[in-house]
């Protein structure tokens, strides 16, 4: 097999630009998704069933439909409905954050509910309010347990961001496809994209395990 290194060299600046955008989309998706996910998770845990219902359905919708459908719907229908034009980057960030928020909220909920009931009781028996107990006692412990599943979710998010190529957002996969479309070759563009994605996800993994180690008591 002849491998055209020269094509990769030619496309390197574009791959670099695409990688930066992929990182940008992912970071925005992770941050917004995490904040939104926490709120939705708390919403779903509300004791009044009726109030929790919208949050439950939010999660059902975003977990129960393909991300590809979500990103197309947001790009071609939702964003134009508000802005009167399309905006690929905005649509990609929206789709990634809204989607990951659904998964993150379930991770938060599971993390919080995994903390022994006695912790809440001990905090309350000391006179703390429910909010104080959550903030100082439950959440810090739950957060530690959430790191591995959150890491998983964020890796999925980085990979899902490649679907933004579909709406012509010039991220990593977009340039891989552009290169493939121009030279009609499969190995060079896709292998390059593969390696870069792998570097991104592996970096995130090691970052998270570092964080996990630092938070370990004892």
């Amino acid at each position, binding site marked *: 097999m002849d491998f055209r290194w020269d094509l990769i060299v030619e496309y390197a600046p574009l791959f670099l630009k695409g990688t930066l955008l992929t990182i940008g989309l992912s970071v925005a998706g992770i941050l917004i998704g995490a904040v939104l996910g926490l709120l939705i998770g708390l919403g779903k845990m509300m004791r009044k069933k009726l109030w929790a219902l919208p949050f439950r359905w939010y999660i059902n919708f975003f977990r129960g439909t393909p991300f590809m459908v979500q990103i197309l719907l947001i790009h071609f229908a939702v964003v134009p409905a508000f802005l009167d034009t399309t905006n690929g980057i905005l649509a990609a960030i929206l789709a990634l954050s809204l989607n990951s928020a659904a998964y993150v909220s379930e991770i938060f909920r599971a993390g919080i509910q995994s903390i*022994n009931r*006695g*912790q809440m*009781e*001990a*905090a*309350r*028996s*000391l*006179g*703390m*309010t429910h909010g*104080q107990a959550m903030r*100082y*006692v439950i959440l*810090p*412990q739950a957060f*530690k347990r959430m790191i591995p599943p959150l890491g998983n979710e964020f890796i999925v998010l980085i990979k899902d961001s490649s679907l933004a190529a579909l709406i012509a957002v010039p991220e990593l996969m977009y340039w891989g496809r552009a290169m493939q479309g121009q030279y009609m070759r499969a190995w060079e563009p896709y292998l390059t994209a593969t390696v870069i994605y792998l570097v991104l996800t592996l970096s995130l993994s090691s970052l998270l395990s570092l964080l996990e180690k630092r938070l370990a*008591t*004892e």
Partner: protein
Amino acid sequence: MIEVKNLKKSFGTNEVLKDINVTVKPQEVVVVIGPSGSGKSTFLRCINMLETITGGHVFIDRTDLMDKKTDINKLRSEVGMVFQQFNLFPHKKVIENIMLAPMKVRKLSAETARVKGLELLRKVGLVDKAEAYPDSLSGGQKQRAAIARALAMEPSIMLFDEPTSALDPEMVGEVLEVMKQLAREGMTMVVVTHEMGFAKEVGDRVLFMDGGLIVEENTPKELFDNPQEERTKAFLSKVL
């Protein structure tokens, strides 16, 4: 100090407390004994509203817990609670466990809270463990730290829910010693326990509970030496 009137508690259709009437006077040490499932832990947990009360009233310092206007958080900060499973906060050092509530609830400064925390740790003999995490402590040390944590809020009442049941036998003594010292200092205490020796030595009054009711109550000497009720006799014959 504590007045419990016609207290009822059900979990679904299961009536755990049927009709409890108790009064605890200031500085009194009341020990609650009884077979498991008799409702003694639930009774204790009702006193600081860890369980929602189904019926009746609980008054702490004449304040009705059932009154919607009562600030439960403030009331709870006056009532210390020690749990069977310690429930120390594992993500915080021992000293931080003790400082947390005084700082967040009483709004003490970190220094004041620390000075007070170390003083309490000295009292329970754990000052050298101040900077350790709970996971590195033995069971007895954990329970003593938990007692110090409850005392940090300067409660006027201490509730103990089987504080030695989860401990290895050789560690029971050190925890009971701390509790005895508290009693000597005049703390009002309600203690649910299986330690009959402790009840005899420290208790001003012993309540025997069974089937969600207080079957018999008396001074320890009278209750242990001269039980009146058949159920009390049957229970004591098994545990003594």
